[in-house]
Structures are given as structure tokens and as C-alpha cells.
């Protein structure tokens, strides 16, 4: 991962581990991120539903892999096959550790820690898919782009198939 860091001036900050899915910039609270890993061999688990990409072996641990694009309902580009490949973000949730497939890891970005309406926060853009809208915990206004922080607990809650 590139060690790119952007600093928000003034006030207490929080760090987000950021990545892209299509042209969206997303982030997850870094305290819940265990590690970022390169693409891995994934073993598919048949009958498990489209959001689950399979399982992977991380140094002897078997982790469930969530296909984050499908989970968040973000369209794939036409020429892009259903990817089971890509870098992974291994995150810790209340139901155990899970690996998320993302398009590209961006880096760590500092954001304002305070929640609530101020100029560093923005409403969710209107054109987002419902699954993603439900998973947003906050939208941070960066220049030139918005950073969508996702709620890992919600994203990683098993979905009924």
C-alpha cells in the first residue's frame, strides 16, 4: 500500500484506510483493519450466494472473502469479469475477521474525528446504489473528491441468500 497521507487541518482526526471501487473512493476505520494483502488464490464456496467470493488461506487461517463490489451493489465495468482477484482488506468485526476484495488500495487518510454537520462532512451523493447507501457511516468532503466511510459491521453482517 502506498503510504500516502492527507492531513485535515485543525481539530482532532481519525484515520481511515482507503480504497477504490470503480470511481468511488471508500474508506474504513483503520482501527478495524487488520492488514492489507495482495491478491490471493480464493477457493469458491458453492451455493453461498453472490456476495461471498469464497475463502482464502492467510497464513493458516481460513478467512471468508466478501466480494465488496457485489455486496455494495456497485456495477462492474463492462469488460471487467466478476473479480475474485484484487487486493484484500482484512478487517475485524464482531463476528470475526473477514477479507474484503477491493479494486485498488489507496492509503491512509486523516479525517476530522467529529461527527455531525460541519464543512468537512457531506450528505451522501444521490446516485449511489441502495446497498452502498445502507452501508455508509459517513461521507467526508475531501478536495477534490468525496470519501465514503463504510460501516464494517453492517457490510460484514451475513446476508440471507
Amino acid at each position: 500500500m502506498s503510504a500516502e497521507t492527507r492531513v485535515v487541518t485543525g481539530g482532532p482526526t481519525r484515520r481511515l484506510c482507503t480504497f477504490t471501487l470503480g470511481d468511488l473512493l471508500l474508506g474504513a476505520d483503520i482501527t478495524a483493519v487488520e492488514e492489507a494483502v495482495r491478491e490471493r488464490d480464493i477457493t469458491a464456496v458453492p451455493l453461498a450466494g453472490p456476495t461471498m467470493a469464497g475463502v482464502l488461506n492467510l497464513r493458516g487461517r481460513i478467512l471468508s472473502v466478501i466480494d465488496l463490489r457485489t455486496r455494495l451493489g456497485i456495477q462492474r465495468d463492462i469488460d471487467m469479469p466478476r473479480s475474485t482477484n484484487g487486493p484484500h482488506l482484512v478487517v475485524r468485526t464482531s463476528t470475526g475477521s473477514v477479507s474484503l476484495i477491493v479494486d485498488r488500495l489507496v492509503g491512509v487518510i486523516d479525517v476530522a474525528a467529529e461527527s455531525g454537520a460541519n464543512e468537512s462532512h457531506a450528505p451522501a451523493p444521490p446516485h449511489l446504489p441502495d446497498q452502498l447507501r445502507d452501508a455508509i457511516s459517513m461521507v467526508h468532503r475531501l478536495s477534490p473528491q468525496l470519501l465514503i466511510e463504510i460501516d464494517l459491521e453492517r457490510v460484514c453482517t451475513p446476508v440471507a441468500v
Partner: protein
Amino acid sequence: MDELLHEFVVESTENLQTIDEQLMVLERDPEDPDALGAIFRAMHTIKGTAGFFDLPRIERLAHGAETLLGKLRDGAIIASVSHITALLIVADTLRSHLSSIETTESESDIDSQALLDTVLQLCEQQADAAAPNDASASPQLAVVPPPTTTVAPDRNEASDRNTSSDTTIRVDTGVLDDLMTLMGELVLARNELVQTAARMNDTGLSACTQRINHVTSDLRSRVVKTRMRPVRAVWAAIPRLARDTAVACGKQVSVRMIGEDTELDKTVLEAIKDPLTHCVRNSVDHGIEDPEARLAAGKSAEGTVTLRARHDNGNVVVEISDDGAGINVEGVRAKALEQGLFTETALAAMSDRHVANLIFAPGFSTAATVTNVSGRGVGMDVVRTNAERIGGTADVSFVPGQGTTFTITVPLTLAIIPALIVVSGEDRFAIPQASVLEVVRATADGSDIENLGGALVHRLRGALVALVDLRSSLNAQPTATPPGRTQIVILRGTGVPFGLIVDEILGNEEIVVRPLDVHYANVDLFAGATVMGDGKIALILDVTALGANASVPEIESAANEQERASSHSDEPTVPVLVVELDRDDRVALPLHSVARLEKFQLDDVELTGMERVVQYRDDILQLLNLSDLLGRGSVPSDPDCRFVVTAVVLHEGRELGLEVERIVEVAEAHSVDHNRNTSTQTAIANGSVIDVVTIENLFNRGLRILGVAA
């Protein structure tokens, strides 16, 4: 909780267990000095430690019991049933105090004064009665046990304990679980290392790898051993359980144990605890007869429940047998019918052993009335469910008038198991070796796999085995082309064995079982996952779920109906193969004359003169259109159809291929007319009238058409 207090609870629970066990011994031999000594010491320890922790209720109760025990041990009174019952109740009360301490850190507020009075009364009464014979046993002395007699055994006990505490330590089971997890990772790392070293071809590395390899294997067996406990650990409670059950139903029972040192994994042991309890209760309540009935049958008044345990091929087999009346199969049949589990005909078709196994069905109970002990219909299904949950099986067999045997088979350990590695499509899968019966290679032309009414079957030494295609179970693209080379793994899930079609068998491997997490909880086809030597993951198949998914029981009932047809000659039914000639025109072929079902490529059908033939099994098979043959008119053949569906029928050593439109199903037909000279007989199958083709007649006609003298 305070660590010392926790240790007191653990230790006292063990002591109470000893008391229970030894009281059972005492009941057989009321004057057994070893048993009395052991009970006394255990009670004394509880009393002493309770005093130390300031637990007055426990202390007083234990003290009262000790008083009674002192008298028994001194021979002032002889242990009778009432003494033993009272002492058992004391043990139970102490247990509830202990469990209360474990949760609330204080004694339970059970009022045990009445119990204490009873115990003391028992001392007094019998002491008085015994007093004239033994002057030394005055009540005064008996309350405080004579020091001379207590000191000696106590000292023995102390020294015993010292030696055992020098060589054993208590370890929290969580530590053992962690150890096992780490061991699993080490095994995986070792597997990877061995593979990598083999590629590197470096002498020094190879030697080192070799050593690590051996040490890991040794270590693994030791670590597995730390989790092993003798089956005695759960059997210990059985005599007491049997006694209580027997008392409740007015019977006499003794318990015999064989192989109580057989060791098995802690987790497995816990899993069989409930099944064991239910089996023993069932044996005592339903199996063993009343003393009068036993005497009338020429048996001793006291029934025996025998527990046997042994290792068998990586499994542990636990048998619970009684010498009772066996299972009342007619009663089970009637009950199953009443509860709507099966139809009358289906029940009549089942073998007695099959019927006996119905007692494992959920909610099943034959007890006429609901008793305290059994008859609520929850019980025996727990036996099978629990055994299966950990990859085991439960079975019951019986000999009328001589007894019933429950057999529970469970794997030795759950964490690291031998497994068969198979390939289906691109992926590898592991099947626990414990469920694999055998592997059969299906021949290249696919003729080993038949399609009966949509269900795939294989004839294994004459018996029909339902087949499950792993690819279609996994929703992968079904094997569209006839599989070139497939293997059938015969598996034992619940009940009947079934075959699993896989692409390839890779061999056996020891695998470390890892659970799949909550994200895959909705997929019941997999029992877990494991990391293979190359670092990739293989999923572990759940054999029971595979069998259930593939609805094997339907084939089973078809097979049963065949069995019925052969075993109940008074009911003239024949299994028939129903085929479709045209959309609504169906006829049936007697199944016994159907040798195989084939699907020939149209390109393979050759014309020789007027005959249509195919090369088949190094021979030439004549094909005849069944519809033509029966004079039902030619069906215009679909020009796009690339296949000829054929039933190969056999008569007096000659084979004939009958072209049909579609194979429908296997059914049971009641013959209506028996005229052998017509081409068909009318019969009733599945409630509708159908023509059954007379094969003999058909051959004659067929051969005539072909211009051969019949």
C-alpha cells in the same frame, strides 16, 4: 471466581462422583471395606474443605453423612437400600450447592434440615438396633469417628495424592484447545515445508526438514493424546443413572462395563454423553422386563446393561446392550403408523431391523404413558442427531427375547482426521474417511450409471445404490457430456449408503478441520475447510447433508418396495419400469428383465438389411421400436433428436434393445390378468392402469419381425 474456591468446586464434584460410584458398589456388597473407605474419605474431604471456606450448609450436611458413613464403616450398622438412597440424596444436594457456588459464589438456599434429620435418624435407629451386639458403637462415639481408624486411611490417601500431584497437573481445557489449533498450523506448515524442500534439492535442508517432519508427527500424536480421556469419564455416571431409572420403573438392573479405558477426544466424549444417557434409560425402561416377567422367561430377576467400548479403524464404537425382551417391532410399526411417519404398505415392506431404527425418528416414543423416565418422545432422536453432528452414526439391533444393542460409532478425534481427497471440476474436496465405504470406478461409457426416472443409480453387486453427482449438488455446470472417467465414492450417511460421483480421486490425507465462519452458515453442504499441502483450501463435504440434498430416501423406498415384492410373496406385486412411448402413452416393463438403460448416439445406429443395430459391449444389439412392436403406431421421430433412449431387456440369455421416448420411473405394479400369450397384461401401478409388456411374448414377436424363427 476465587481460584481456590473454583478448585474446591472441581475437586468436590469429583469426590461426589466417587461417592456415587462407590455407593453403587456398596449396594452390591454392603460390607465392602474399600468402597466404604473411599466414600468416607471423599465425604470427609468435602466436609473439611467446606469448613475452610466457611460454607456451613455443606459442612453440616457432609458432617451428618460422615457420621452415618462412620457407623457403616465400623460395622455398627449394615448398609441397606434406605441408607444408600439417603446418601445419594445427600450427594445430589451437595451438588446443587456446588453449582450454586459456581454461579453465585454462595451456597444454594435449599433447606436440607429434613434430609439431615433423616440421615441422623438412620444412624440412631440402626445404631440402637446394633448396640446390643456391639457395645463400642455408642451414639456418642459414633458422632466423632474414632481417630485410630480414620488416621490410617487418611494418611494413605494423603500419600496417594502426593504421588499423583507430582506427576499430574490440572490444565484448563482452553489451553488444550489452543494447543490443538497451533498443532494444526504446525502440521500445515510442515506439509508446505516438505513440499518446498523437495523442490529445492538441498541436502542440508532435506535432512533438517526430515527431522522437523518426524518431530511434528510425534508431537501431533502427543498433543492429540492430551485431549484424550477414557470413556470411563462419562460411564462413571451410568450405574447411578441405571439404578435411579430401575427404581423408578420397579426393575432390577446391574451395569457391566467392558473397555472403559478406551480413550477418545474430550469433545467427542462430551458429545456422546447425552446419547449414552438416553440409550441406558431406554434399555432399562423399555428393554429390561419386570422381575416377574424375567423369572417367567427363565432369566434372572436382575437385568444387565452392558457397556462396551472399543477402537475400530479410527472410530470409537460404544455399544449399550441389555438382556431384555428386545424391541417390539409390531408396536413400533403401529406407533409409526399412528404418528403418520410412514404408510402401512411402506411399513409392511420394511425389515424388522429397519423398523427398529425408526425409534431414532424425532418425536417417536412407544411408551404407552408418559413416565418420568421416558415416553416423552424426545430422546432417541437425540442419540442419532448428536452422533451425526460429530460425524458418527447410531444404530440399533435386537434379538427377540434376548436383548437390544445400541451401537454408537463416533470418530476418535475431530480436529485432525483422515480424509479422502477428491476432485470435482476444478476444485478439491475432502470427505471424512469415516463415512467412506468404498470407491468404485465407473467405466468409460457411463453404463455403470443408470437413470431411473430422473434419479441416478448404480448397481453395486446387485443392489441399487442411489447416486449423487457432486457437480450438480454444487450447482456447477452439470456433466453435459457423458463423463469419460468418473469415480463413485460409496458413502454412509444417515441410513442407506449412497454413491457420490466425482471426477477423480487424489488419495488419502490427514487434514486439519477448520470451521467455516458465520458467512457460510446457510450452506449446509460443507462441514468445514482445510488447508492443503500446497496452501490452497479444500472444502470438507458434509456427507449427511449431501445425502439429504440428493433425496436418497426416495430411491431407498423404491428399493424397499422391490424388497417387499420379493419378500412378501402373498402380495403379488412386481417392480416395473414405466416408459413413455408417446406423450400420453405409457407402458411398463417388468424390472427384472431390464438389464440396463442406454442412450445411444443416433450416429452409432447402423442399418443391416431391415435391422437397426448398434455395437454394444463388444457385441451387436438389435434395436426395436417398442411402439411399433406393440402396434401402437409409429411415432414420428424428432429430426433434431440425436439420441435413442433404449431399455436393454434380457430373456433367456438374449438381449434386445427397446427404443422408447422417455424413461419415466420405477413403480410397483399389481398384476390384474395373467395371460402370458398376449403382448401386454393390464396392471395397476401408482393408482393408475398401465399395460405391462410381456417380455416372453415380445421376444417372440420381435424375433418374428426380424425374420428369425422363434
